[in-house]
């Protein structure tokens, strides 16, 4: 009841202040735009705005950032679905199935599902955030150390081989290729230089954003261009059909599952929405009876990834506000906003500035609701972007992708990486490998390697140490069971060859 009263007070404080409303609405629109345009992201917007927040009150500054966070995580889904360009890494799994749906003429269903699920995931997460907070954060950091996070990543990767590849072997090779790319650069523990060929830029590792842009956007343009040249090209059919209510209801378990996964990943410091989206997607694959359909245009893929990444937003505020531990880059910038107002996020914020906390909570709740409203309004217009003929659209996409790759760190090498990935992706896709698998391996591999090394140090290099960590042990066993089952199917069961493909995209 307390929580409800506080929430009501926060809502009143938010909407009774004209300046607050203006900032709220600007945050909603700004986050969506910057999330949707490849090349810039909500982080770009946040970095631009950071110095200006000194002139806002603390409430308004933090509220603006939290609203941008909610809507920015959704915005990237649109370009992921329509053009195969994830606006930010947490939307990459959305492209796995969203873009194939566009090619099948189901863009409306995919975007509609993304709108609904982002809103549901975010709103539920905001409610959980209000009810949970401090005790949950303490529990999360004490129950989940590096050994458990590694086990979680392993559990997720165990099922990833079935995403988008023609056979399970090619699926595994794709994942392993991603894992190999992830080990380029300084090793996360001793700082040992690996595969750097004496190039200082390789020391920093191969960044996943140019890699994603290359494997998805650039290789897709080459695939379409080839079709255009050989006369096999047909423009994607336009549809503005929204997913029906019964269609979404049929995926209710996927939504609930993704909320739980997303919320959980969001709570862990340093993990955040990207892992949430990938894990949400992987679990959808694991629990599905039609796992070979994933990566080829399955609505459930879009639903799982978009629900999970928005569910992580509310959760990420918990360790930030309760413990002062930011979960990702954007929440880390929020720490900067707090500091500009002589505050430190942490347990004292709840005591000293409870009003502020509840205004932020209310703002996040309504920001997620407004995704639904604005999403519905814009979807029917935005889908018309697909009417642009390919020969005009392709250069535009290439330009945006190039800007996006360069903007990550301002390094030309990232643009080179993107084009190399594009060409590689083109050939890998023709031969039945999965670019989605490579990206999964790359992103989960970076987190996995670091937590593995930390876990081994903590357990004194003894695997048996896991016997004293039941959560980690359970996740590891579940992962091995999944691996065993898929190996069994590959050898003994009836061939699980995918049915004839409608499109070659993965």
């Amino acid at each position: 009841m307390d929580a409800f009263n506080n929430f009501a007070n926060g809502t009143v404080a938010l909407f009774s202040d004209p300046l607050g409303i203006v900032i709220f609405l600007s945050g909603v629109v700004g986050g969506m735009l910057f999330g949707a345009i490849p090349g810039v992201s909500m982080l770009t917007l946040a970095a631009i705005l950071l110095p200006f927040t000194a002139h806002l009150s603390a409430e308004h500054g933090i509220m603006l950032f939290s609203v941008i966070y909610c809507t920015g995580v959704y915005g990237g889904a649109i370009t992921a679905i329509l053009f195969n360009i994830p606006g930010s890494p947490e939307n990459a799994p959305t492209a796995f199935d969203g873009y194939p749906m566009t090619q099948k003429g189901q863009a409306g269903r995919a975007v509609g599902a993304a709108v609904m699920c982002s809103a549901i995931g975010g709103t539920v997460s905001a409610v959980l955030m209000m009810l949970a907070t401090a005790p949950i954060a303490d529990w999360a950091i004490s129950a989940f150390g590096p050994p458990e996070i590694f086990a979680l990543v392993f559990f997720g990767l165990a099922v990833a081989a079935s995403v988008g590849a023609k056979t399970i072997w090619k699926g595994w090779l794709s994942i392993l290729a991603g894992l190999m790319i992830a080990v380029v650069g300084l090793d996360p523990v001793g700082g040992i230089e690996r595969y750097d060929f004496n190039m200082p830029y390789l020391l920093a590792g191969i960044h996943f954003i140019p890699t994603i842009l290359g494997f998805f956007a650039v290789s897709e343009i080459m695939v379409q261009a080839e079709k255009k040249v050989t006369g096999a090209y047909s423009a994607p059919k336009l549809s503005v059909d929204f997913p029906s209510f019964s269609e979404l209801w049929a995926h209710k378990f996927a939504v609930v599952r993704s909320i739980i996964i997303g919320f959980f990943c969001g709570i862990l410091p340093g993990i955040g929405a990207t892992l949430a989206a990938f894990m949400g997607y992987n679990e959808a694959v694991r629990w599905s009876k039609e796992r070979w359909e994933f990566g080829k245009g399955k609505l459930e893929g879009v639903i799982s990834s978009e629900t999970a990444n928005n569910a992580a937003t509310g959760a990420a505020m918990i360790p930030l506000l309760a413990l002062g531990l930011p979960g990702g880059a954007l929440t880390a910038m929020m720490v900067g906003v707090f500091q500009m107002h002589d505050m430190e996020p942490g347990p004292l914020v709840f005591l000293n500035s409870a009003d502020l906390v509840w205004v932020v909570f209310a703002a996040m709740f309504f920001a997620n609701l407004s995704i639904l409203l604005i999403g519905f309004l814009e979807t029917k217009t935005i889908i018309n972007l697909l009417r642009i003929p390919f020969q005009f659209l392709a250069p535009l996409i290439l330009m945006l992708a190039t800007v996006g790759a360069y903007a990550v760190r301002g390094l030309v090498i990232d643009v080179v990486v993107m084009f190399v990935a594009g060409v590689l992706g083109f050939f890998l896709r023709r031969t039945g490998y999965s670019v989605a698998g490579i990206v999964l391996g790359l992103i989960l591999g970076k987190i996995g390697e670091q937590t593995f090394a930390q876990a081994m140090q903590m357990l004194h290099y003894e695997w048996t140490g896991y016997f004293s960590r039941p959560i980690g042990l359970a996740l590891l066993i579940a992962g091995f069971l999944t691996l065993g089952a898929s190996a069994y199917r590959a050898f003994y069961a009836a061939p699980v060859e995918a049915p004839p493909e409608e499109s070659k995209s993965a």
Partner: protein
Amino acid sequence: MKFKNYLAGAATAIAALAVAGGTALAACATDDLPATRDKAGDFPARALTMIVPYGPAGGSGQVAQAMAQAVSELTGVSINRDHKPGGSGTVGMTAYMATPADGYTVLEHIDDASSAHALDSSRPNPAEDLIPLVTSQITFSQIYIRTNEDRFTDWKSFVEWVKAQDGKATIANVSKEGSMERVTMKFITDATGMKIQQISFDKGAPRYGALAGGQVDALFEQPGDVRKFLDAGRFKPILTILKERPGAFADVPSIKDVGLDFEPLLRFRGFYVKKGAPADRVEWLQWAFQKAFCTESYQKYNESKFMNLIDSYRDTEGSKELITSTVAQYREVYKAMGLEVK
């Protein structure tokens, strides 16, 4: 130039005295520099770029933001920050060395640049290949435990407990080979005879979460970075890695108090311009960055990060001395550790 250095030097001495006396309020190191200064010809005619070899949220990102803001307030010239993280600062440094030496691009860097040069002399030497404009943050490290810890309560009981664990005790750290953290821990473990497993976390939040959540037994960190945990009463320092106790931590033993005898390594952050930039532009930048150190906003920032506990200011010459002695110190340590010094 000489006179200015003299002034700055004298001001530093006064500031040091003031800090020592516990009255850092009034005097500031560069109060004697002129409040305004004409442009050097038409320089700067446009915004400056500051390359920051770390992300925006960490200690370097924050000091870059605070200094850029202070310089802009002072001179009206805006500074665009360009973050190029990766490879422990190597990527940013390499990108910076490729920029033209026209004074428009400046660099933020930390003591990692000095230790990297000590290990491999083909890496740029910040004191010779760059011109330090100002060193604006100098701080020390401490070892922290949870406040509600009951297995040990102070340094003495901690050392005993760690020894009893026979190598199973853990401390969260940034343990890149040859880093300030790793070298300092080696000094400590060699002298005390404890065996402790160092767990490397390259980002702050998971590192602090590991101590708060009981994943590790202790934490190696600088006080400014964990101030909120200290203020909230969750962490407490049990050892200050300095020879003397600073006033704010008067009840925490220093290394000298617990019988450790080594020269403490400091963490420092500063701003640089490339060697070969026109002399009048360099002088203008030196004035701007040194004067900005004493602006109210920058001083407030440094104070909030515990950067006022020991003298945090060095001008160009002072920075060169600091870097040169740091490089020499690391080189000696690396040789003693058996690392290959190139």
